[in-house]
């Protein structure tokens, strides 16, 4: 592998690494890439360029399946990387066991962003199904963030109604009737809410909500933390068939492992992702409100089951959408 990499160097070829990521990680990886480029130069003497591609997580996975040469994928949810493994066989099925914490170096959760003053009085999930409340969330078919949003609402309803599936479904159905616009990705939904001024509440990644509050100034938006939410775990992986062909396996692996180092964790925390490393988590504890969180494994038995039951063609989300028309 080192041979192949240095061969590329001798041939005067630019050493590049393509990170195909999801929507709201643009700023995170801009910073992280700069830090890693320096780290790698000090470590190996090689000067590398890291390229980024961003979009809805499902769409990005589809492009990798169709041949986008991603050395690493850093997507919104494990199922999208599973799809790359299953449909195209570009990485082994056990990819999630290769890095610590199920290959999820940082976490986030789902919170609400409301306009200053919170005139609709939104405090918890129950307030989102009230008539006359306009809710912005992207399309779960294309956006990973939207699937976390949907499952967070579903998990809350299951708990509220004592695991009664029928009533949970009715709850989510009513919530989605309040959604006037489906954007394809989380960033598009944020733009709709923040810049175009549409909707009373945005269901958003916590990092995206914190970023919006910071960017627009504290006096425009408020974050409302629901009583219960989901632990969103965005996973990372190197794509074996691509790194083997391009001779970038070592670099790709080091890139992802650098996310777990104190430096990487600091950068993640600064971009409002909840760090895994205890020391960094403590330092940034004030930034992240305490929420009771459930995991997808606890409530849905993992991504495969959740995807199959809810988001596959003809699944529960499709049925809700059809009934809503």
């Amino acid at each position, binding site marked *: 592998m080192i041979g192949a990499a240095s061969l590329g160097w001798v041939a005067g070829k630019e050493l590049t690494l393509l990170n195909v990521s999801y929507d*709201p990680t*643009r700023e995170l990886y801009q910073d992280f890439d700069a830090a890693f480029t320096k780290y790698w130069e000090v470590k190996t003497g090689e000067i590398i360029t890291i390229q980024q591609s961003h979009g809805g997580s499902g769409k990005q996975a589809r492009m990798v399946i*169709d041949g986008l040469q991603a050395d690493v994928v850093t997507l919104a949810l494990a199922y999208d990387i599973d799809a790359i493994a299953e449909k195209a066989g570009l990485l082994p099925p056990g990819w999630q066991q290769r890095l610590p914490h199920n290959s999820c170096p940082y976490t986030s959760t789902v919170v609400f962003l409301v306009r200053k003053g919170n005139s609709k009085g939104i405090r918890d999930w129950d307030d989102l199904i009230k008539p006359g409340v306009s809710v912005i969330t992207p399309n779960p078919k294309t956006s990973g963030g939207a699937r976390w949003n949907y499952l967070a609402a579903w998990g809350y309803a299951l708990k509220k109604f004592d695991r009664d599936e029928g009533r949970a479904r009715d709850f989510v159905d009513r919530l989605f009737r309040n959604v006037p616009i489906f954007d394809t990705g989380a960033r*598009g939904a944020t733009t709709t809410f923040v810049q175009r001024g549409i909707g009373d509440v945005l269901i958003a990644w916590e990092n995206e909500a914190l970023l919006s509050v910071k*960017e627009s100034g504290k006096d425009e938006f408020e974050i409302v933390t629901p009583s219960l939410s989901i632990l969103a775990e965005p996973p990372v992986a190197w794509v074996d068939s691509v790194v083997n062909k391009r001779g970038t396996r070592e670099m790709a692996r080091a890139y992802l492992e650098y996310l777990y180092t104190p430096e990487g964790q600091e950068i993640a925390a600064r971009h409002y992702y909840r760090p895994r490393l205890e020391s960094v988590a403590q330092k940034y504890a004030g930034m992240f409100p305490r929420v009771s969180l459930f995991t997808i494994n606890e409530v849905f038995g993992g991504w495969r089951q959740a995807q199959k039951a809810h988001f596959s063609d003809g699944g529960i989300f499709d049925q809700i959408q059809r009934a809503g028309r």
Partner: protein
Amino acid sequence: MTGIIKTSSAASVKQSRRGAEESPLAKWALIAVALAFSLVFLLLPLVNVMAQAFVKGWACYWSSLTQPDSRAAIRLTLIVAAISVPLNVLFGLAAAWAIAKFEFRGKSLLVTLIDLPFSVSPVVVGLMFIVLFGLQGFFGKWLGAHGIKIIFAVPGIVLATIFITFPFVARELIPVMQATGTEQEQAALTLGASGWQTFWHVTLPSVKWGLIYGIILCNARAMGEFGAVSVVSGHIIGRTETMPLRVEALYQGATGASTVAAFCRGELAGAPGLVYAGDQDFPRMETGERISGSRSRIVDR
């Protein structure tokens, strides 16, 4: 035609008897409607974007253009246009020539095929190339094994752009060539000019305004195409982002500053279109005159 005029303007029968003139009222009403419509729906949004671009001053405008990623997007867009426009000019000339000057089997099929890109949604065009050249597509395995990148790289963007801009030059040239007819070329050939001489000295000058107009439209679309390019681009920042894709990415940049930058870029993408708008008068008048001229001849008979 006369039948339609009679029924549609029964109130102004007198005027229409006097000749082909419409009543002044109808004429001015039509002009007013057309002008008002283009002002409100076409000019107003464009002027607004231009105004927004300079809200934060020239410095912001300039810095948003000179960002490395924006520069890369501009360069890629120019490269794509530089490849696809000349190819479509060559094809357009050949196709228009064949259709206007010759009778042959399959002529109507060729005319239909030229129009095909107009009738296919750009998203479908992009997906078509993915189904063909994507890793799971028809040629995917072979291309992958030979290390040839088409989709999610510059060749794919060029292919999609050529497909989308295919009809523009041919569509502009065909009516002009048909209107000029073949008499002059036949005369040139009879006087001993070679095929090439005839083409350069007789055919090309007579269609030059139509050709220029076609190139302008073709170029504007090549530089502005979003849908098909978005599907095949892969959105690699600084590598496979064209100007329209960059505008979208900046719009989604979440920061206030970059929104303005997006407006700046939107203005840039719109600017060539405006320059073209100024030029449009010329070719339109020329071809318009020629076509109405030939029509009046028919009416005279």
